[in-house]
């Protein structure tokens, strides 16, 4: 009896072990698949950072954009994949007491201008038309590569905009506006041509949430610094520079990003919590209904950083050091040199000819003049002796 019960217990234990191992095997496979599903599927990262306001008192907008630029570069996106548009030059502004710097923290703690900043669209080139051209790719031919957004269907793009805005529009350069419908249409054009895999849109302006209300293309996540009807406020003025250095929302986003490194696993839900109403005074908003993945599975580095997929090279092909071809090509070079005739230079400045020509024209002019005098002035009296004309 005891033996039977022991055997049955052993069998059940064995069955249990087997079930567990199968379960864990299936589990790991499901986990692999699940992990794959939650991963982003992008292979490169781009960033379009736009500051839309000019004039010295809008220093904070340039500082906002440059601090996002700095974070994005630090986390790995190279300059060739960043399109930076700054509508005014604060670092070299005549009113900047510390030229070549743009500070984001008071007491000049952090210079976000750095010494390797690469501004692609500067000053008056930052217009609504250029911005839309960059997004949709319809740039005029001859635009240099650094001014193009050469993204493809596996690119994750971060778009950051800051400036002065209102309900449904964002002001560019104090002279024109971009409306939320234009922006939504531009994103739709990008989607139709599959110019992005996923898009993160961050906007730090007054009533920023109105700018993402009209999006209708898939795979877009949007964050804004304030709701419709609220103003986004600036952070702190610096007494030495004399202007407000940063906006609150971007200031706290920058602090949040300073703690991220290329290998960190922080996800988007943490970014949504940045800058609560107590710190920001306005209520930041976000929109994720167009986004396919759950925000808690989206890593910050999916948009702010750039990690490349890499494979180890295991194969080589075999080459022979082929000296024969090398020698024959040398001989060809020599033959070419022998056949060429010695070069002659054309005369660069034929001085003699120039003087001769000027003398020639002067003489003919003098002759013509005297003939004119004789025939017209003297009238029908016949040709007189032409006066002797000396070239002067």
């Amino acid at each position, binding site marked *: 009896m005891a033996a039977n019960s022991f055997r049955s217990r052993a069998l059940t234990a064995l069955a249990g072990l087997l079930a567990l191992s199968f379960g864990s095997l299936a589990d790991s496979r499901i986990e692999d698949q699940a992990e794959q599903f939650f991963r982003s599927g992008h292979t490169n990262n781009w960033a379009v950072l736009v500051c839309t306001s000019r004039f010295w008192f809008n220093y904070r907008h340039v500082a906002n954009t440059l601090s996002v630029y700095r974070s994005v570069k630090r986390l790995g996106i190279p300059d060739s994949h960043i399109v930076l548009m700054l509508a005014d030059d604060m670092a070299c502004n005549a009113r900047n007491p510390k030229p070549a710097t743009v500070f984001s923290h008071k007491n000049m703690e952090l210079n976000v201008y750095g010494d390797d900043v690469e501004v692609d669209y500067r000053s008056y080139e930052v217009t609504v038309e250029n911005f839309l051209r960059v997004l949709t790719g319809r740039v005029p031919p001859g635009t240099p590569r*650094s001014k193009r957004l050469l993204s493809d269907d596996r690119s994750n793009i971060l778009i950051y905009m800051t400036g002065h805005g209102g309900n449904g529009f964002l002001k560019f350069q104090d002279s024109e506006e971009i409306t939320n419908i234009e922006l939504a249409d531009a994103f739709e054009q990008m989607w139709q041509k599959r110019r992005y895999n996923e898009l993160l849109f961050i906007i730090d302006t007054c009533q920023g949430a109105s700018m993402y209300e009209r999006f209708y293309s898939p795979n877009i996540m949007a964050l804004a610094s304030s709701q419709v009807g609220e103003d986004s406020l600036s952070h702190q003025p610096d007494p030495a520079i004399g202007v407000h250095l940063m906006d609150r929302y971007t200031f706290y986003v920058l602090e949040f990003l300073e703690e991220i490194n290329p290998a960190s696993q922080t996800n988007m839900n943490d970014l949504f919590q940045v800058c609560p109403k107590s710190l920001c005074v306005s209520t930041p908003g976000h929109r994720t209904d167009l986004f396919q993945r759950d925000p808690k599975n989206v890593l910050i580095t999916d948009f702010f950083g750039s990690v490349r997929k890499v*494979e180890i*090279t295991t194969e080589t092909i075999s080459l022979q050091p082929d000296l024969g071809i090398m020698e024959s090509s040398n001989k060809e070079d020599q033959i070419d040199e022998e056949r060429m005739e010695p070069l002659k230079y054309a005369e660069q400045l034929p001085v003699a000819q120039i003087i001769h020509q000027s003398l020639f024209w002067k003489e003919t002019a003098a002759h013509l003049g005297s003939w004119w005098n004789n025939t017209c002035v003297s009238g029908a009296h016949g040709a007189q002796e032409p006066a002797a004309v000396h070239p002067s």
Partner: protein
Amino acid sequence: VPPEVVRGKRAALFFAAVAIVLGLPLWWKTTETYRAPLPYSQISGLNALQLRLMVPVTVVFTRDSVPLDDQEKLPFTVVHEREIPLKYKMKIKCRFQKAYRRALDHEEEALSLGSVQEAETMLAEPQEQSEGSLTVYVISEHSPLLPQDMMSYIGPKRTAVMRGIMHREAFNIIGRRIIQVAQAMSLTEDVLAAALADHLPEDKWSSDKRRPLKSSLGYEITFSLLNPDPKSHDVHWDIEGAVQRYVQPFLNALSAAGNFSVDSQILYYAMLGVNPRFDPASSSYYLASHSLPHVINPVESRLGSSAASLYPVLNFLLYVPELAHSPLYIQDKDGAPVATNAFHSPRWGGIMVYNVDPKAYNASKLPVRVEVDMVRVMEVFLAQLRLLFGIAQPQLPPKCLFSGPKSEGLMTWELDRLLWARSVENLATATTTLTSLAQLLGKISNIVIKDDVASEVYRAVAAVQKAAEELASGHLASAFVASQEAVTSSERAFFDPSLLHLLYFPDDQKFAIYIPLFLPMAVPILLSLVKIFLETRKSWKKPEKID
């Protein structure tokens, strides 16, 4: 009724008539966005295009390869068609057209030589085969041309040799084997799936391994030598000679696939972004495989690849580690050092670490002169170049002898496979672009289509149709050229700067513009029309009452 009132009524009616009949249509016509006519029906027809990829195969039978009564039936043609099961909206069918014929005298002579390489050289001279076509020679079952255990041989120049069989069903059996060999040399499902990887909806994540370069008109290849420690290493590399000897022949063989330009540079004090770790067991430094992805970004900004050209750039970096971190090895996932000491990133390029021979440090003082062994370096770089282009090992049928690539590093039928894949990819891209343009025009109403954009669209549609025809008739070279033209035209049409002509006017802005113009004119007309209508209705009702 006083005549002034009648005149007044007629005047009001006349004004209204002019405004409505002439004015409204004129205003409508002059304010609509200009759209040159586009072939919408043809564009939607492209989505349902059936691509038939024809591979012409010539099968040459020698005297003793098949039974005599089968030989009497020669020459004839057999067609084998198969649909490739891909979840793509275009149906792709693969058609092998096998033309069976008897061997000519010089072919019999060549195939009776000692080794298969000699036979090939003799056979290759008379004709150059066109792109996409294959020739299979069937020799007798016991011929000594191939090694005993091998059933077939795939050569580097679009030829294959196969053993025949003396059997009743000889043609059927040989036919199946020929299809296997022909598929390995031209088209399989893998090749097409990799080509269409960007267009297939599923499996975005697993196809990372097979991510060849996107098809483009040209490519820029940059070789960079990174020397972070010039105080210790005085590195010299004969890059011009190496490019001329090894890279240029390879690129010449690939020249049908695009324009290539090569340049090189040397960068000093360029560090890798990752600190290598020290391995005391082998007293060397190593880079673990999980840190490799972080190596590329810090160094890429120094490469200047964005200034090179508008074509996609492939970067090949040769890194000579600094004295403090020598020797440096790359470890794979299991911790074993990689034999090639190199890694690559799809669609970007490759990096190889070149360790200086420790013997060089013995005699001389720093800086030590280092002559880079370009053969070893180019072997790795060319292998990476092949991988980046998606030229991979084919799936060989069993018992098949495979001759490696020739001195150029590329077999001609590998180029054909690339051209097949690229043609299909180009057609898919062009169709997607045209379809997206049509959809966009439907969704956003104020995109202007000028005449030259419309002509580009027509050209693109014509090129897609031509490419499909050429593919169906087996002319690979002209099909590839047509497909490239289709992509160029469609991209030019889609990305034409003039499409962004009109910025959006929201409805309230439109009202704000039109109301001051139309309202002062419209109100009197409408009111007088209403008045006329009421009066005429009263005058109709009046006679009834009297009667």
